C-alpha cells in the first residue's frame, strides 16, 4: 500500500464536500470510521460521528434543504504512512426547511475545519476525528415561504 500523499487528502476533502452538497448520504457516511469523533460547529461537546450523521441527515439531507460550500487552501500534514491531518477555511451556505414550512438560511463565511484521515485495513482513507467551527458568530435568517409548485 502506498504512503498517503497531500494530493490524496485534498481529493478526499473535496469528495467530502461534494457528497455533502449532493446529499449522497451513504457515501457521506462511509467517509467516517465507525469509531470517529466529531466537534460539530455549533455543539458544546464532542460526539460520536454516527450521532452527528443521524442529525445531519434529518436536518440537511432532506429534499427542501440546500448545502453549498467554497473551500479555501487545504493544508495537509502527513503524520505517518497512513495518517494525515487536513485543515482549511470554508464558506458554507445552508438553507433548511422545517416541517412547518418555515425556511431559514445560515451563512458561515468564516468556517474552519480540521479532519484527521487514516487508511482503514482495506486502504480506504476515512475520517477519524473532525473539528468544525466558525471564527464569527452565526445567526440563521428566516426566508419567505417557498412559492407553491405549479402543476405541469
Amino acid at each position, binding site marked *: 500500500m502506498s504512503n498517503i500523499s497531500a494530493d490524496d487528502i485534498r481529493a478526499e476533502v473535496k469528495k467530502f464536500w461534494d457528497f455533502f452538497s449532493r446529499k449522497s448520504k451513504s457515501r457521506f457516511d462511509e467517509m467516517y470510521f465507525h469509531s470517529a*469523533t466529531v*466537534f460539530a460547529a*455549533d*455543539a458544546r461537546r464532542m460526539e460520536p460521528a454516527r450521532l452527528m450523521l443521524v442529525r445531519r441527515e434529518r436536518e440537511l439531507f432532506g429534499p427542501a434543504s440546500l448545502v453549498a460550500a467554497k473551500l*479555501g487552501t487545504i493544508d495537509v500534514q502527513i503524520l505517518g504512512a497512513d495518517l494525515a*491531518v487536513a485543515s482549511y477555511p470554508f464558506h458554507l451556505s445552508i438553507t433548511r426547511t422545517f416541517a412547518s414550512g418555515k425556511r431559514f438560511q445560515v451563512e458561515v463565511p468564516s468556517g*474552519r475545519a*480540521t479532519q*484527521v484521515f487514516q487508511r482503514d485495513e482495506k486502504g480506504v482513507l476515512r475520517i477519524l476525528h473532525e473539528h468544525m467551527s466558525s471564527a*464569527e458568530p452565526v445567526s440563521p435568517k428566516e426566508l419567505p415561504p417557498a412559492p407553491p409548485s405549479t402543476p405541469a
Partner: protein
Amino acid sequence: MDKISPEDVRKEVHRFWAILSGKSPDKLEEMYSPAAIVFSGKAKRSESARLTAVRRSRQLPGIASTSKVEVGSIDVQFVGPDVAIAAYTYSFNTHKVQADGTKVQLNTPFGRATQIFQRSEGGAIRIVHEHLSAAAPPDMGKASE
C-alpha cells in the same frame, strides 16, 4: 522509544493550560513541533504555531491579572505508537489590567479543543496540530470592581 500513554497526553494538556493561565514558567513555544499548525479561537485561517506561540506569550496574564481555566474530561485517541489526539472542552476566564488601568474580562465558557500530539525523534511529546474554538462567542467587557 516508549509509546505515548493517556497520562502523558493529559499531563501535556494540563501543562498547556497552566502556561496559558500564567501558572507555569514553562515556554509555550516548546510545546509545539516546529511545523505545527494552529487554528486559534477566533482566527479565520490557520497559522504556524510559532506565530501563535509568540502572540500568546505576549498576551500571557501578568502580575496584575488573574485567570481561571477548567478543563473537562480529556478524550485520548491513539493513532499509531507515536501519535495521539486529545479532544476536550474547557472554560477560560481572565481578568486583565490594561496600561490605562482599565480592568477587562474575557470569558470563554464553552471552549472546545483538539490537539494532536506526536513524539519527536528526541522523545519529547509535542503538539503538531491544534484547533481551539468556542460553541458560543466569548464575552469580553469591562470587569466589575
